[in-house]
């Protein structure tokens, strides 16, 4: 592997890692509040990408507006899922997980008749390549990094400036202090779904679109939050960057599938020696 190739795959890795971070942050946020894992996260990523296909590519709306539309639509969808699935189950963790699993398979299966059997493609928003340290990098991939970073910083400020951060740490205590738990949970669902939609919307011009496209990013996000520790935001960010780099560099050297197998072996070993992940706290 030449140095140029290494630089190139490192940049691609950071860009890939940014997507993973957005996915993992939503998951970790929802886990922190409700102790549930959102199995529908991958399906929401897929829907986020399809909104770009229909609104930006078919509808001719500017990309930025389509991007915001995608986040808003799926944020509302997240709120509705909280109202219609999470809230009626009344905090039963296991039934909620199974219900979210059912929602996922429903959205994926319904995707085929609704979106069609053929893969969809979104034309590049930022075509061409640019020169970074003497290596050609696609602008499309490069643009993901600042957008994701802006979203992460925005989320961080939002959580810390509001009482959401207190609610994330101890929802019961926050409820005692007069925080409306339903509103907070609804907000967590909305933010989590909007972040997954943002990841899908950012990836839409790069990968092909099909109803199962969310499965891989979901598994990556799982690996990241096991790696970083459940409920930890710094853990999700560091884990996302690490997995993005592993994915890009190992995949360039050996192929995408060995990269996935390697990361799985890695988390099993990590669980053996550091069971709560790199930043996680004990239950």
């Amino acid at each position: 592997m030449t140095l140029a190739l290494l630089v190139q795959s490192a940049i691609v890795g950071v860009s890939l890692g940014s997507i993973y971070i957005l996915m993992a942050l939503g998951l970790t946020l929802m886990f922190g509040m409700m102790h549930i894992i959102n199995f529908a996260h991958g399906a929401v990523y897929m829907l986020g990408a399809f909104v770009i296909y229909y609104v930006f590519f078919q509808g001719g709306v500017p990309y930025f507006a389509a991007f915001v539309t995608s986040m808003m639509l799926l944020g509302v969808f997240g709120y509705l899922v909280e109202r219609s699935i999470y809230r009626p189950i009344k905090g039963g963790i296991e039934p909620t997980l199974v219900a979210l699993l059912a929602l996922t398979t429903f959205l994926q299966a319904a995707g085929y008749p609704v979106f069609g059997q053929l893969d969809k493609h979104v034309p590049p928003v930022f075509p061409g390549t640019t020169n970074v340290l003497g290596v050609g990098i696609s602008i499309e991939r490069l643009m993901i990094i600042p957008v994701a970073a802006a979203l992460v910083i925005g989320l961080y400020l939002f959580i810390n400036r509001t009482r959401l951060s207190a609610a994330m740490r101890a929802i019961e205590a926050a409820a005692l202090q007069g925080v409306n738990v339903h509103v907070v949970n609804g907000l967590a669902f909305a933010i989590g779904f909007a972040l997954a939609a943002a990841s899908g919307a950012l990836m839409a011009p790069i990968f092909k679109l099909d109803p199962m496209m969310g499965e891989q990013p979901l598994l990556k996000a799982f690996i990241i939050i096991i790696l970083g520790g459940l409920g930890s935001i710094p853990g999700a960010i560091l884990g996302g960057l690490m997995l993005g780099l592993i994915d890009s560099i190992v995949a360039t050297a050996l192929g995408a599938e060995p990269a996935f197998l390697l990361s799985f072996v890695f988390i099993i070993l990590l669980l053996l020696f550091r069971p709560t992940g790199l930043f996680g706290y004990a239950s």
Partner: protein
Amino acid sequence: MRRKLGVPIVLAMLAALALLVPALGGDYYVHVFALVFTNVILAASLRPSLTCGQLNIGHSAFMSVGAYTSALLAKNLAVPFEISLLCGALLATLVGLAIGYPSLRLRGVYFAMVTVAFVEVIRLIAQLWVSLTRGMSGLSGIPKPSVLGMTLTSRASQYYLVVGLTLVILLVLWKLEHSRLGLIWKSIGMADNLAQSLGVNIARHKLLAFMLGCFFAGTAGAFYAHFIRFLFPPEFGFLMATNILVYNYVGGRGHFVGPIVGATFLSLLSEPFRGSPYETIFFSIAMLLTILFLPGGLITLPRKLAELRSWRTASAPTPSPAA
């Protein structure tokens, strides 16, 4: 008292009905019902793990291990069916140990996420190890099952084999659930910290329940391999794993017959849609509706209906004699 008698009666009725299938229906029904029984084994073998409060979303991976092991041993080394089936089940159990030991000591969601990822790991291995599994071309030419050196050539005889396997496995699981071990599992599922304070080694018991499930999933996979005689990696994917979980929830978590009812009901009902995307749509809607409106599963349906009826008669205390 009624509860205790209920299960043997249901099992006996099922067995009687099952034995009549080849006589009443043709090869198509024999085929369909053989797969129903495979699903019953898979669903029932997930129950001990679920009873412990462990959401195993990767059961199809262990089925896949059992299926490929048994098929390859029989095909490449001419190992007799009984031995290859046992080897498949044992390897599935060993793999379960390797996955379960690190992840079961943690809270449930870690385990759930590891099992989901593991489905993908097994699928990739089956897909990439082309020299052994033939990858995406699929493994074909798997020998038919045999018992004591006699090859079971007819569809009906293979069907009786799976009926027998199912009955034995259900009996073992039923006995275990009503033993001291079953009570321990239940106590872990209800309040693991309380169980731990009473001196129960929760990690070991969770692992045991999980490995038992892997053993029977491997058994079901081995039968499946020799019955269908063709293995294709994506078949044992995420969807099948979810379905096995769905059987348990739609049937009902509260009683031993829950997964049996769920697997039978859903497998038969989805048969007309098999292979089309509508099968999955139907499955997921059934699952969502059950969780939201019938949290106890189908097995609580008779009681719910009775409650509804008594509520109605109670709200209308003087029913008109004309009605």
